[in-house]
């Protein structure tokens, strides 16, 4: 399976992971040696509530094929409600990026607890496959090339 993947184009996903849940889950996936697609580039934040929509746009504008946000399950936020703030921003952003002609599957929010290394693996693989179906992002090109 991996031979096949390495020959193909591999998407680049900028992943913002909450320190307390998804980042820990990705450590757990590592410790458990769960293999998954090498597409994510993780940026650790203390809470998904820290994720500024600007970060997501910047990632798309600079060439990310996808952006993955990993936060704590509803009710489980380490800081009580940061994940809800994240969810509300995400829901609004999804509407915005759809209007901007961006496939909404390029932006994904998942609740992955510290124990869910397996879920992390599945989410990354799934998203990677989806992005492979959609193909490389042209956002960077569009942003950088003024068409006359």
């Amino acid at each position, binding site marked *: 399976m991996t031979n096949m993947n390495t020959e193909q184009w591999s998407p*680049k996903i900028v992943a913002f992971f909450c320190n307390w849940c998804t980042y820990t889950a990705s*450590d757990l996936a590592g410790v458990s040696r769960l293999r998954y697609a090498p597409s994510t580039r993780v940026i650790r934040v203390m809470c998904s509530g*820290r994720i500024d929509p600007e970060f997501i746009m910047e990632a798309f504008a600079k060439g990310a094929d996808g952006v993955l946000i990993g936060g704590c399950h509803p009710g489980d936020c380490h800081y009580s409600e*940061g994940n809800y703030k994240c969810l509300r921003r995400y829901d609004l952003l999804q509407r915005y990026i759809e209007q901007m002609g961006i496939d909404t599957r390029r932006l994904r929010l998942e609740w992955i*607890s510290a124990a869910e290394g397996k879920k992390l693996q599945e989410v990354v693989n799934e998203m990677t496959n989806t992005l492979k179906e959609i193909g490389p992002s042209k956002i960077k090109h569009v942003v950088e090339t003024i068409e006359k």
Partner: protein
Amino acid sequence: MSNQKEEIRIGYYVCHCGHNIAGVIDVKSVAEYCAKLPNVVVAREYKYMCSDPGQELIQKDIKELNLNRVVVASCSPLLHESTFRGATSKAGLNQFYMQMVNIRENASWVHESKEEATEKAKDLSRAAIHRVAFNKALEKKKVPVNPTALVVGGGIAGIAAAMSLANAGKKVYLVEKDPTIGGYMAKFDKTFPTLDCAACILTPKMSSVLKHPNITLLSYSEVSEVEGYVGNYKIKVTRKPRYVKEELCVGCYDCITACTFKEGKFPDEFNFGLSKRKPVYIPFPQATPLVAVIDEKTCIHFKTGKCPQTCAKACERNAIDFTQKPEVVELNVGVVILTTGFQPFDAKKASNYGYGKYPNVFTSLEVERLVNASGPTEGHVVLRDGVTHPKSIGIIHCVGSRDEKTNKWCSRVCCMYSLKLAHLLKEHSGAEIYNFYIDMRTPGKGYEEFYDKLLNEGVQFIRGRVAEVNDWATTPEEKGKLLIRAEDTMIGMVRRIPVDMVVLAVGLEPGKDAQEIRKMFNISCSNEGFFLERHPKLAPVDTFTEGVFIAGACQGPKDIPDSVAQAGAAAAQALALIDTGHVELEPNTAFITEERCCGCQVCVAMCPYTAISFDPVKKASSINEALCKGCGTCVAACGSNAITQNLFTDVEIMSEIDGILIN
């Protein structure tokens, strides 16, 4: 932004971690690649960066090459960030000028393709190299640690942890939700493999807890609210009304004798319903504290208001108080140890074994009470009818353990306690005993020897998972018996064994309030619902919340020796924190730049800790650093960019994004 003007001199270090990283990632090419990136003065690879020589390498370079930034690409920062921060500060550089790159957990351990893992390591390293230029020098804030501890759960783990702390001279609050401490251990007859009597070793500990001048026991109480942070927790404990004044009751039983109910009428929790109790009761003779409790659900006074209150009249000390209300006690503690235990698997869920359907199917815990000399039958092994002595008994292992349909995990204690019960049942009843097991798991000191002993005692062992227990007799001999159908994998055939009594060796599950407790204390659970330790090997009693430790079966199934050992470990960790006297807090708090703040107060509502307040005179908001926990939610909500989160500033994160993507 003075740090943008200074010349940035970065030292980059990539760790082999033996073969852990270097086996997958071409560390040499990563180092060569990074050496060419802007601001990088030196890029090295080394076998083990976390080793002393690895750390010295960094320190030497900082001094000799005048480095002012350090990037270490190795394992997860959750593991070694403090190591490399320490190395950096020892060389005289602010520790926050060090940025870690996780290329082990996040790359080499999870990817097979060497090229792609190497590519990823380069991307992540480049991101850190971009970011570190913007890192700011910060200082950790020291806050004092309140030297008082809270232990939640009064089973053997909680008792052991509380005693260790109290013996070390620390004040301890021990909170127990039941009317007595002792937990499950108090209900056991003998303990494996030594067969010493559980009560004999436990009850002296229970009374030590009660007598200890450093321990405040809050029984029949539950934690209802947790606030604060490491070293300074504010805990609210709700004391449930016993309707008996604890300070007056001497445990004389007069009220119980005098109760309108002449006989016990309600299932006795302590004996798993094998006996009956009155609405006013003492759970068991050694209950600690030895104080009666009135159960409002069954007491006539509470149900009808028409009780003659004979109990109250019988109490010479006027200890009975029907007007008691739940009372909230506020505690200030520095550390918390959670020892909230487990719950036994509900045997009814394994419906093929007939628990609840056939009266003579028992759970192992019921049998613990049956074989107990102070139990409901004074140690006589009898069937549910209370008189018949069983002549044959089948013990089924792994009920609610190692089972795809119920719980996948091994409960670790069932093989051993089943062996113990087999021994005790044989001893008490002389019955024929069959053990149905999948694998015999006896990894403990003296455990395998105990198994050997049982093999020689004439107990039958059948290796195979039991398919079903029923009463469908096909021969006259089977009539009135329970039939156990199981595959005997040793002889390769299905067997059908008639017995008088079936004992289900139920497994251990997370406590039913585990989720609630987890949320209150802001810790995580692993998949199956037991509390999650910070690191399975290196921090087995720590949690991701500083100052909150876990011990005993709340962390995962374990036996008494392991629970006590873990309790000791948790107590030691708590002591280390208390005796240090202070904790250093990660400086990831946020602050508001007044000149930019417009006073729109969007952020004020963002903060779950009410750390942000608006000053109507200055027309600006400000953050109380002591209250800020550093989530950064307000930062993202500020339309003026007036809020900065230390360690996670906008420019730091933006540069990390750009670093990942700009090749």
